[in-house]
């Protein structure tokens, strides 16, 4: 009986240890399987996440380049108190607002309506990763402000090159906006009259210091010069590129940039002018914005210089003038703006802005432009994340040397979606 009991005890012990060994073996086996299974799951999650992030992107694995496609679909509806008088299709002066587009004595052009989808654009960006270095970036962008279609049938406007450039290790090569253009612009649908805008081929180098940067560039030269009879001509006698240096500061609540432009203005018997002369021109552009409270933003700008010319207000004033004594003289012009954006709700905001440009004309002709200004007030609404619906009223005036004043009132309604 004892034997049987002890035998049962041995059997029991044997069974217990066998079961434990079996359990641990199964556990270890299962653990290995579980680890492999988790790894497999993690890989699948990673693949799914990558797929999620690659919406709108195309990865070219052979060159380690990722391509991004995007753009904007936009419609502007404009009501003008006085139009510029060009026929449908070639009436871009009615669609863009600038000091040049404030009409002088527009007879029979009162109360006109204009619609355009030409602000729509399309871009392709690429990013190529480099080993232990910053990526190489490129951008190619076009819009539809190329040669005009007509409004009679199809509005078949052509493409226009906006940007085509690459950025690598601080270097920028290609066509893009000039470094002279400020980094802070009013958030109105259209810029006030002093808008500093220039897009041209350039070579630039940018060095970043934390969130600040300093940049130098050599850019395409071009000169708009006024003849002694008061006509503006574009001369093609440039010998040196325009040189620009820009400092940019960024912090949590403010941002500003200061740009210095140095360039040679040169004329060599251009367009029946019996004159060969050159001079050094300069200009400064200071722009910035401050977040006053929450998202509300105050934007400001001041630009000016002897020879600022084509860089400000779409060549409203010349860079230089040929005097009665037949000499080339740089013309001083300046401009300023102040704008404020106030958010009523996270989707609705009010924008107000005012801007002014003025020049010291060298010639004493009564028909020359002396100054211009504009006031903007508008409301913008974002029903969806990238959808914008905007309404903006603009009043613009220009004053000539003979003290004659001309004005225009415009109402813009814009719907645009960035994809």
């Amino acid at each position, binding site marked *: 009986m004892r034997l049987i009991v002890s035998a049962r005890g041995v059997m029991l012990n044997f069974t217990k240890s066998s079961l434990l060994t079996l359990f641990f073996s199964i556990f270890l086996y299962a653990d290995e399987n579980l680890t492999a299974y988790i790894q497999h799951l993690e890989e699948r999650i990673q693949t799914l996440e990558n797929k999620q992030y690659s919406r709108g992107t195309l990865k070219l694995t052979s060159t380690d380049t990722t391509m991004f496609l*995007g753009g904007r679909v936009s419609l502007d509806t404009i009501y003008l108190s006085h139009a510029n008088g060009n026929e449908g299709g070639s009436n871009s002066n009615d669609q863009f607002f600038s000091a040049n587009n404030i009409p002088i004595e527009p007879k029979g052009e009162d109360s006109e309506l204009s619609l355009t989808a030409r602000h729509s654009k399309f871009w392709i960006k690429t990013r190529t990763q480099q080993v232990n270095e910053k990526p190489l970036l490129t951008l190619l962008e076009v819009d539809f402000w190329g040669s005009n279609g007509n409004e009679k049938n199809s509005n078949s406007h052509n493409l226009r090159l906006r940007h085509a450039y690459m950025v690598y290790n601080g270097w920028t090569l290609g066509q893009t906006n000039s470094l002279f253009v400020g*980094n802070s612009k009013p*958030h109105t649908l259209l810029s006030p009259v002093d808008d500093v805008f220039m897009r041209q081929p350039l070579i630039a180098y940018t060095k970043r210091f934390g969130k600040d940067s300093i940049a130098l560039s050599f850019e395409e030269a071009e000169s708009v010069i006024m003849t002694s009879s008061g006509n503006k001509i574009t001369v093609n006698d440039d010998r040196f590129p325009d040189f620009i240096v820009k400092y940019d500061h960024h912090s949590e609540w403010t941002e500003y940039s200061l740009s210095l432009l140095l360039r040679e203005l040169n004329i060599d018997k251009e367009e029946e002018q019996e004159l060969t002369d050159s001079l050094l021109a300069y200009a400064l552009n200071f722009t910035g914005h401050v977040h006053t409270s*929450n998202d509300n933003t105050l934007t400001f700008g001041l630009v000016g210089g002897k020879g600022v010319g084509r860089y400000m207000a779409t060549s409203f004033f010349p860079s230089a003038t040929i005097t009665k004594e037949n000499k080339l003289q740089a013309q001083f012009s300046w401009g300023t703006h102040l704008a404020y954006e106030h958010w009523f709700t996270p989707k609705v905001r009010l924008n107000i802005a005012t801007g002014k440009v003025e020049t010291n004309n060298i010639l004493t002709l009564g028909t020359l432009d002396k100054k211009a200004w504009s006031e903007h007030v508008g409301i913008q609404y974002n029903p969806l*994340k990238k959808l914008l619906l905007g309404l903006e009223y603009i009043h613009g005036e220009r004053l000539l040397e003979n003290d004659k004043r001309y004005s225009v009132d415009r109402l813009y309604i814009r719907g645009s979606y*960035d994809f």
Partner: protein
Amino acid sequence: MNYFVAFTSMGILLFSGCYQHLLEKRVEPTTHSQTSTELQTMMHQFDNLIFQHFQSELDRDQKRIDYTKDMIVIVDKLVENSKNLQKFSNNQLNNISQNSFITLAKDLEQKSKKLKKLVINYKVEEISPTLDEINSICKRCHAELH
């Protein structure tokens, strides 16, 4: 000399006391609330970069990177605050809530690390989804453990 040592020691003690007081002030929930509002504001500004006038799309991307750097600082503040809040709310949360809070705080820290990697590798397209994830962590935390 002895007076100088005594006054200096007192000064150091007082300063360290004040500093400690300032530190203690920082861990109050109001500070977390302010930082949270600051982050919401920056996220809103980030979303609205799409409507602003920039030199080009690459310039807009650079601005997104700059804004993200600012947001990383704020998210790190929130992570730091969450550690302090853990101590602050030890007595007020049960074990399940405490664990849930720690998990969410760790998630937030992970997202901050992810944002830093994205900025270094210039992966601008992944910033917005990551900010959405941070936003959802904040919302979950506020909803579950408010």
